[in-house]
């Protein structure tokens, strides 16, 4: 009987250790903790080109992650991308003339939305729109422009 008891305790410890490990993986290793609930508010912004932005890409202000991209859709009439951002509810004092840009983290890193605060006294609320946006920099376009300007310079010299 005693042996059965110790066996039960050990099995209990085994199961507990397994669940602790699963919990550790979920909380410490994955992005569950930074996802924490669906609370917060949503704002939308329109971009001409979103480059490689994806759903769940970070939304950052001054380099600090304050939310995530919740959805990306395409407007059939204006041919623009509509990006819905989920901002954490604790960051509720973002001016409504904030400027949204799509940046790339590092040379080859993932793309994220960077918000530069404006000077307005009005704050963004749920369903708000960010009207000042700048598209993602597409490397091919930049190289194309660079070559074009080089060619023009060359033409001017002659």
């Amino acid at each position: 009987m005693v042996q059965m008891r110790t066996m039960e305790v050990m099995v209990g410890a085994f199961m507990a250790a397994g669940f602790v490990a699963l919990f550790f993986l979920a909380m410490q290793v994955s992005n569950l903790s930074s996802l924490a609930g669906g609370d917060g508010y949503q704002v939308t912004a329109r971009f001409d080109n979103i480059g490689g932005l994806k759903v769940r890409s970070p939304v950052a202000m001054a380099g600090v992650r304050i939310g995530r991209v919740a959805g990306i859709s395409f407007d059939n009439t204006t041919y623009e991308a509509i990006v819905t951002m989920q901002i954490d509810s604790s960051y509720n004092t973002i001016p409504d003339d904030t400027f949204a840009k799509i940046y790339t983290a590092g040379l080859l890193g993932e793309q994220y939305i960077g918000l530069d605060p404006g000077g307005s006294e009005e704050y963004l609320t749920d369903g708000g729109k960010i009207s000042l946006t700048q598209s993602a920099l597409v490397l091919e376009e930049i190289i194309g422009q660079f070559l074009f300007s080089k060619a023009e310079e060359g033409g001017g010299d002659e």
Partner: protein
Amino acid sequence: MEPLARLGRIGIASLERLGRGHLLLLHIFSGITDLITRPRLLVAQLHSVGVLSMLIITVSGLFVGMVLGLQGFYILSQFGAEETLGVMVAASLVRELGPVVTALLFAGRAGSALTAEIGLMKATEQLSGLEMMAVDPIKRILTPRFMAGLLSMPLLAAMFSAIGVIGGHFVGVGLLGVDEGAYWSQMQAKIDLHEDIYNGVIKSIVFGFVCTWIALFQGHDCVPTSEGVSRATTRTVVHSALAILCLDFVLTALMFGE
């Protein structure tokens, strides 16, 4: 004519084995209702299948994580990307190494023991003895072992991955000087709960199912002699390893292939 006949014999024999394996599985499942009323049988098997495998799993996990830390640091530092060491260690553990290595160790540690135990029970006619007493040996002996294997595998794989991440942290942050914050934050930013961790858990459940099934079938189907038991034990390890690696490819293609 003779080679053709031999090929046919092999085909029929393997198909027959496959059929017997599935019938055994059905029989094992039919014992689950009886098992619910007698959870003690399950506890005893969880002990021998799960608890006793814990040591080898945790120690291997620690060392695999530490090796990943060393190797990953060596490669990543050539690109100046040491900060992503956490992502590399965690992704490779959670997606692949955790489920696969745990399943291979599980087949070697627990699977072979199950086959040998049941094979010996058959060889010493304990299974027939149970049948004589109107106790269904499959429901009484095999079902608890099957459920214990199915339950233990995901827990063991989770332990393996968790300990491996800590081992990688020990080497990367403790010995090689990767930034501690970067190790965790990059990991949390890149490892997705559904994409990576759930899929890893699903893999480990599938492997646990297949490993335990193979072990029990080989034990139950063995030739009841000492040689037969030894052959069945070898077959358990070989078949389990092959099944794990093949299934891993299929599951990876289904889960992570676009």
